[in-house]
Every structure is written in C-alpha cells, then in structure tokens.
C-alpha cells in the first residue's frame, strides 16, 4: 500500500519535470542560451583574461572564484561538523599499536605501500597542472586523501595517526579557506577588489602564481579534510 502511494507521488513529481525537459533548448545545440551567453564569453576570453588554458579552472578560480571559496568553506564545515559530532575525547597519544581492523593480506599491504608514493606523485602532478590540463586542486587533493585512506587501512593505528603530523594538523585542515582568504586579500591590496587578479599579460607570472597557490591550498586543505573525516569516523569504534 505504501509502495503504491509512493509510486503515485513519484509519477506526480516526474511528469511536470519530464514535460519541462521537453521544452528546454535542445540538447547539444550551439544556440542555447547557456552556450551563447556567459559560457561563450568564458571560452573566448578565458585564456587572456583569466590566465589558465583550462577554461574550467579559469571559471572556478577566477571568474567564479568566490564560489570556490564558498565550496572549500562547505567542506571545512563538514569536517567541523563531523568532528563536533564524533570526536572522541581521547587524550593525546593514546593511539596504540593496535593492528588495523581487518588485517589485510600481505599482497594488499605490499601493493599499497608501493603504490602510495607513486600515486602521490601523480596527485601532485594533477594539482600543479590543473590550469593547463584537466585536473586542479580538488581533484589532486582527493587523490591524496584516497592514498591516505588506503594507507590507514594497511598500517597499524599508531603509524596511521603519524601520517598527519600533529602540530600543523589544525592549520592544514583549514589550509584551503586560509589560503583562499590570503590570496583574496592580496587581490584586495593589489587590485582594489577582493580576489582580484592581474588581467594583463605582463603580470602573467603573478597571475599564474596566484592560481597555482590556490590550487595547492585547495589540494592540501581538501586532502587533510578528507583524511580527518575518515580518521574521525574510524577511530570511533
């Protein structure tokens, strides 16, 4: 009975949506408002104005840079939330040499340990090249986070906790928003507007430097946040 009611509800919801889809500008058409308006501008002027060949990077770091700042704030909020909800009141250093929960086989351990540094290198590549090839801060940061998770699964608990150095831990977690603010304020100081970037070719180097710094900040921050969330969830057993 309940199932039937739900299906009816879904049909009621779906019908107007589907009908609306029919009326949208046709898929893939180069005349759609989405393509001809703002999108076209980005494609045309992105490289010279915003400084990265990867137009998507242009958009997220420059034209719509503030949205990305908001986004790093969101993920930071999530981390703060997870910590607020789950953080055990552990005394410092009580993490013992307890073996990982499901001791993996030798094969897994070996492979992970070998792959980890290689994957990290790849991640760094992705971060640094984000403005030229597909990739970017977040993408690379996630890879680093994934490496961390894999390592946590195979290492003993004590070694795993050592993966995030204790003292800078808190700064690392907040790295993304902080770096963003700093660059933003730099823009304010130099160009009279928050998050302002140089727009000319001469200052191209500065612009690229700002972009890359942001990418690194996002990458480090993102990775740390992912790692922290994972660790907090895991340590709560």
């Amino acid at each position, binding site marked *: 009975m309940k199932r039937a009611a739900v299906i009816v509800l879904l049909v009621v919801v779906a019908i107007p949506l589907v009908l609306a889809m029919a*009326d949208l500008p046709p898929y893939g*058409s180069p005349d759609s408002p*989405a393509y001809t308006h703002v999108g076209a501008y980005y*494609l045309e002027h992105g490289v010279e104005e915003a400084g990265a060949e990867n*137009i998507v990077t242009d958009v997220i770091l420059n034209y719509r840079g503030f949205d*990305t700042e908001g*986004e790093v704030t*969101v993920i930071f909020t999530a981390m703060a939330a997870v910590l607020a909800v789950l953080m055990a009141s552990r005394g410092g250093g009580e993490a013992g040499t307890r073996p990982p929960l499901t001791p993996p086989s030798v094969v897994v351990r070996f492979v992970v340990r070998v792959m980890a540094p290689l994957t990290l290198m790849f991640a760094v590549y992705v971060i640094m090249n984000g403005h030229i090839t597909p990739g970017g801060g977040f993408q690379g940061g996630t890879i680093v986070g994934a490496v961390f998770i894999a390592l946590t699964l195979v290492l003993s608990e004590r070694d795993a906790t050592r993966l995030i150095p204790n003292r800078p831990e808190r700064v690392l977690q907040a790295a993304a928003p902080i770096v963003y603010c700093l660059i933003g304020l730099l823009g304010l100081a130099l160009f009279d507007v928050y998050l302002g970037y140089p727009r000319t070719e001469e200052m191209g180097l500065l612009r690229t430097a700002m972009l890359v710094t942001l990418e690194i900040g996002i990458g480090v921050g993102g990775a740390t946040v992912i790692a922290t*969330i994972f660790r907090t969830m895991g340590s709560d057993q």
Partner: protein
Amino acid sequence: MIEALWQNIDYVASVLLFCIGLYAMITKSNLIKKFIGLNIMETSVFAFIVALGVVEGGDAPIMGVGASPPFINPLPQSLILTGIVVAVSTTALALSLIIRIHKQCGTIEADELREME
C-alpha cells in the same frame, strides 16, 4: 512532443534517476539506504547540469595544443564541481550521524528507530 523528448533524452534520463533516488529514500527502511537514495538524487541533478553544457561535436574546454572549437561549456562543469563537494560534505555528516545513532540505539532501521522515540 515525443520528438522533443527524444532529443533531450539526456535530461529526461536525469529526471528518471532523480525519481529512482527519491523512491529509494522514501521506501527503504535502512538509514544508509535512504541516504544512498539521496546520493542518487544528487548525482541526477549533477548529470542534468553537466548535460546542459554539451555542444554537438564539442571538445573539452582546454585551450592547449590541438584544441579546436566548438568547445563544451565550462560553466556547468564548475558548478557541479562545487556541487559534488557539497554532496560529499553532506554524505560525511550524514554518515557520522548514522554512526552515532547506531552507537546509541543499536539499530539503523527507521522502523525500529521510530518505535524507540
């Protein structure tokens, strides 16, 4: 009209995904399953938005060597980048709540939980 629907089939597909997710969210009793339903819904909206940017025969919007117009619209991609991060954040928080609920109530089935209230 059918023709228009067929042409925009990608959009229609995302609506269907959305409904599947909604169905899962409402009917499944297990909290984690409900939440996966939410994830499916989120993905459907992202798919919709990305599909908006597609241009026929378009290339990735990266101006490097060998790139040629037409390019795919970069804006939707940046939108969903942020969107995905938001979805991940929500996931993280939801899961931690589920962990706590499990610790405190011993169950993550919505029916049993409702009895406990």
